[in-house]
């Protein structure tokens, strides 16, 4: 080998050495200077964001009593790779956490898939058990503070709604939620979810490779404290609600009471109801399924969703429209001989004095009288034909809040149903007249109203022509007022002056002589109207509409009892007792209370 070549080879090798170091330094420059990924990954390694769940807002009744409270409870979490490899006292852990060994083993097997990720083992560990857990010092397991709902009075199941962990479909629609969050699923809980929810906080911790906490990141500079949810003051009167639920027990139906001067819902009972505490905690799923398959459907909020035929209570609307349309004067007399006869069609009525005027017709709930009124409205010569008359009638009815959502703060409010021209055109192939749809006059046929709409009708009459949108929340913490729509008077298309004879009729029905005399309360000038809705599938539905006192009314109420018989049989006593209790704070008719409480209605429809 010549010296020249030797030199060349030495240079080549030096070149190789320099080249290798250049490649290494270039690569280092890339990952240290240009690729930002690694810095982020390093943070992800070292920082653990621990969610701090806020307590959910509480709900008070109108008198400051708790309807819903938050109770602390704990989620048990595990990080698989931190578990003591030498084993731990599984029996004790199971006992403290209240879970079975198989469940623990199953959850650990799941946690093993992602050994570094925290995984939920079980929820709803009460405070006492959490303290015992802390004593046990189980490595790899830790608890997370949560709050769950608690209902001191155990009332208002459907009204208040329930809270559950977010499910997949909800997450898809609401990306701001994360797995593990609790969310209101119905009733007040869902309507006021944004207010009740509060704001989650976060605690950033530095952890080592074993997940052991090494301290807070940057001395907590980026931590945030959870903000509790706002509290709500509900318009509900807890004691009235409790009585309402007691009285409705054993019956299927709904009762709604509203303060006419504000539109505040004082009570809203849907029967059968359930103990809201049953939908909290570990047994939630089982109880929920039980309720879901219960034939009487306790989870169905009848007060705002059910469509009931209003029956005779609808005669009030009929009379008001007649007066406004000018086809009826309060003094108009009509003849009724046990019913209304037109050709072969006959609408039966009960025995009462005849002929009779509007006030007495309301008081005694005469079918024939309102058949005349209804036909006069539809066949009004002002309009070209009966269908145009029907359209006008429908407009009036809708102005009373029927056939549409009232716009309350209850999210799952139902529409009810008011039939339109198209419906009858289809039903009778286009050929129908005022006689064909005559049963509308007494609130039958296709008409469907929610108990809330009926209570709203009671408010309209109590207020002589207007209503405030019924609502269930009076005050939200930190907000001066509610939505504007709850402070506006909504007038019907009937002039307030026409209400007086109807009110008079309702007053007479209770206080002078009529169908509702049992609702009389001395000194309170109760006004009421019974309804008995025929029902193709069994006994008549019983309903009662009332407000009191006659002047400056304090409460308007509607009670609807499915298959309750005559209006006066079941709905009236319930409504009357509720009014008495609300107005006087006592019940002086224990016999009536016993009568109602002992009344158990048999429901073949629901027992199939």
């Amino acid at each position, binding site marked *: 080998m010549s010296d020249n070549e030797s030199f060349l080879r030495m240079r080549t090798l030096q070149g190789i050495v320099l080249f290798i*170091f250049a490649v*290494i330094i270039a690569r280092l420059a890339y990952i240290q200077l240009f690729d930002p990924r*690694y*810095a982020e990954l*390093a943070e992800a*390694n070292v920082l653990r964001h621990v969610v701090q769940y806020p307590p959910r807002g509480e709900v008070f009744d109108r008198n400051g009593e708790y309807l819903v409270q938050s109770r602390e409870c704990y989620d048990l979490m595990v990080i698989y790779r931190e578990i003591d490899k030498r084993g731990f006292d599984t029996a004790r852990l199971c006992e403290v956490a209240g879970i079975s060994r198989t469940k623990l083993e199953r959850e650990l097997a799941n946690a093993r898939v992602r050994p570094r990720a925290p995984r939920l083992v079980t929820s709803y560990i009460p405070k006492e058990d959490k303290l015992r857990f802390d004593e046990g010092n189980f490595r790899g397991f830790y608890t997370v503070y949560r709050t769950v709902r608690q209902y001191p009075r155990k009332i208002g199941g459907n009204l208040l709604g329930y809270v559950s962990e977010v499910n997949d479909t909800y997450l898809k629609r609401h990306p701001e939620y994360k797995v593990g969050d609790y969310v209101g699923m119905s009733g007040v809980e869902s309507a006021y979810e944004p207010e009740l929810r509060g704001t989650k906080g976060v605690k950033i911790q530095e952890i080592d490779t074993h997940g052991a906490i090494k301290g807070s990141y940057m001395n907590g500079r980026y931590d945030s404290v959870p903000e509790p949810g706002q509290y709500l003051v509900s318009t509900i009167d807890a004691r009235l609600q409790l009585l309402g639920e007691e009285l409705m027990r054993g019956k299927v139906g709904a009762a709604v009471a509203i303060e006419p001067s504000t539109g505040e819902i004082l009570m809203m009972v849907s029967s059968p109801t359930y103990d809201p505490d049953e939908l909290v905690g570990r047994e939630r799923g089982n109880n929920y399924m039980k309720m879901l398959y219960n034939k009487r459907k306790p989870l169905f909020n009848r007060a705002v969703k059910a469509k009931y035929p209003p029956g005779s209570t609808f005669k009030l609307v009929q009379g008001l429209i007649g007066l406004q349309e000018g086809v009826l004067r309060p003094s108009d007399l009509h003849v009724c001989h046990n019913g209304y006869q037109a050709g072969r069609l006959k609408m039966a009525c009960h025995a009462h004095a005849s002929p009779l005027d509007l006030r007495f017709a309301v008081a005694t709930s005469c079918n024939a009288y309102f058949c005349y009124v209804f036909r006069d409205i539809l066949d009004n010569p002002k309009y070209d034909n009966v269908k145009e008359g029907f359209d006008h009638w429908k407009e009036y009815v809708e102005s009373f809040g029927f056939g549409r959502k009232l716009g309350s703060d209850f999210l799952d409010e139902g529409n009810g149903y008011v039939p339109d021209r198209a419906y009858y055109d289809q039903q009778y192939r286009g050929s129908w007249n005022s006689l064909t749809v005559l049963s509308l006059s007494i609130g039958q046929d296709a008409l469907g109203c929610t108990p809330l709409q009926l209570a709203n009708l009671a408010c309209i009459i109590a207020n002589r022509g207007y209503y405030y949108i019924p609502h269930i929340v009076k005050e939200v913490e930190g907000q001066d007022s509610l939505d504007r729509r709850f402070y506006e008077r909504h007038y019907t298309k009937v002039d307030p002056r026409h209400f007086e004879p109807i009110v008079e009729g309702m007053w007479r029905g209770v206080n002078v002589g009529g169908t509702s005399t049992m609702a009389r309360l001395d000194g309170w000038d109760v006004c009421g109207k019974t309804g008995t809705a025929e029902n193709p599938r069994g006994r008549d539905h019983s309903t009662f509409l009332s407000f009191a006192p006659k002047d400056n009314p304090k409460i308007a109420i509607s009670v609807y009892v499915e298959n309750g018989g005559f209006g006066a049989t079941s709905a009236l006593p319930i409504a009357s007792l509720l009014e008495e209790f609300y107005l006087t704070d006592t019940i002086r008719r224990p016999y009536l209370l016993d009568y109602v409480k002992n009344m158990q209605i048999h429901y073949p429809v629901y027992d199939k």
Partner: protein
Amino acid sequence: MTSNRHNGIFDGVDRGTVLLYVLIVLAGFVSIISASYDDSTAQLFSFSHFYMKQLIWIAVAWVTALVVLLLDERFYHMFAYPAYFAGLGLLVAALLFGREVNGAKAWFEFGSVRIQPVEFAKIATALALARVMSNYSFSINRPGDLFKVATVICVPLLIIILQNDTGSGIVLCSFLFVLYREGLNKWLCIPILLIGSLFIVSFLLSPMVLLLCLILVCTLSEAMMNGRWRSRIIFLAALLLASCLLCLIMALVSPGTLDLYHSLLIMTLAAVLFAAGYAYRSHLTNIFITLGLFVGSMIFLPTTDYIFNSILKQHQRDRILSFLGIISDPLGTDYNVNQAKIAIGSGGFAGKGFLQGTQIKYGFVPEKHTDFIFCTVGEEWGFLGTTFVLVLLCLLILRLMRMGERQEEPFGRIYCDCVASILLFHVLVNVGMTIGLMPVMGIPLPFMSYGGSSLIAFTMLLFIAIRLDASTRQFSINQFS
């Protein structure tokens, strides 16, 4: 330099090299402090810390360096072979009686001190190689001499592989660097590198493709050495044609007994015999070397699958597969490399500061004070720190090569180059694996990784080179003064 007249032990010692050495050791010590410092242990100078132990090892290493410098340079020349055989004996002893650590049966344990004989075997092999190659009659391109060299390198290599410490074994392959420097035909070096890389990917290719690659590489490198392109191309074409013909004929005579691969194999064996005869007649001895390489690879090739599946441990297989991008598993096999890259990458330009590296401190980087010590440098001192350390190492290697060039005896030159090549290989593989350039092999970063036997062995390795160099310079200094 004026005081060097009295033949003191520091006479002629290359102070630049020693300075580089000291700097690198100190940088390593600082990194070990970072990697093993624990807030929760209050006592700074407790001997439970790795860095306190390392301090002792550094002291021992420096004493060793002094001893190495004290010995006469002829001593190393004389004892090269005994040292080599002692090294082999130690390796075999470790294989038989050693202790298994991380799957490699390559350790002796004396109380709390563990020694890896392979570190010292490297020194012995380097000395023996220098001794063999510095013989007067030695000529690297003569097949007999080349065979001697191959034996010196391959015997310890095989034992180390048997110990299941493949990473350390492959270090010996870096001596190719020295062989090239000493005049090994570059058309032998390149095919060796190519075949080496073929082995790494061999399990990806079919035997047929592998065989074709081997034939092509060997024939072409031979053609580059000897010229005569036309005859080589005819040789290849004839080989291909003959095997196709054989395959066809056999398909006609007895279908299914011989496929194309086996026909090619048979024809290749015939061709090897033919080529040997040709080489003998035309006195082209280098063909024998190529043929030896070819046959060696042919024998070795079918065993690579076996090696890959049986000798390599699951974790080593996974590392190779994940390095080649065939499997990806950030939490499993790739975890170490990913965490290493994250630690280095998050250091940025100037780093997080001394003792501030979160990835290191909180244990995300595995083996943070031994094999992955470079991550500590990267995270706490950033790009500046890593470049600083790499520049020191690069200067040390270049300096060693320059020391080699100025030796008068080939023994010294070859030994210096051996040291440079070992260091280069360690740096390339160790740093390369932390930044994803190399598959993970458990070999330490010279002078920096925690560990007594590694530090002492590297110190001895380096200071023998310095001692050899010093005697040359002593001589020249004495001559000119």
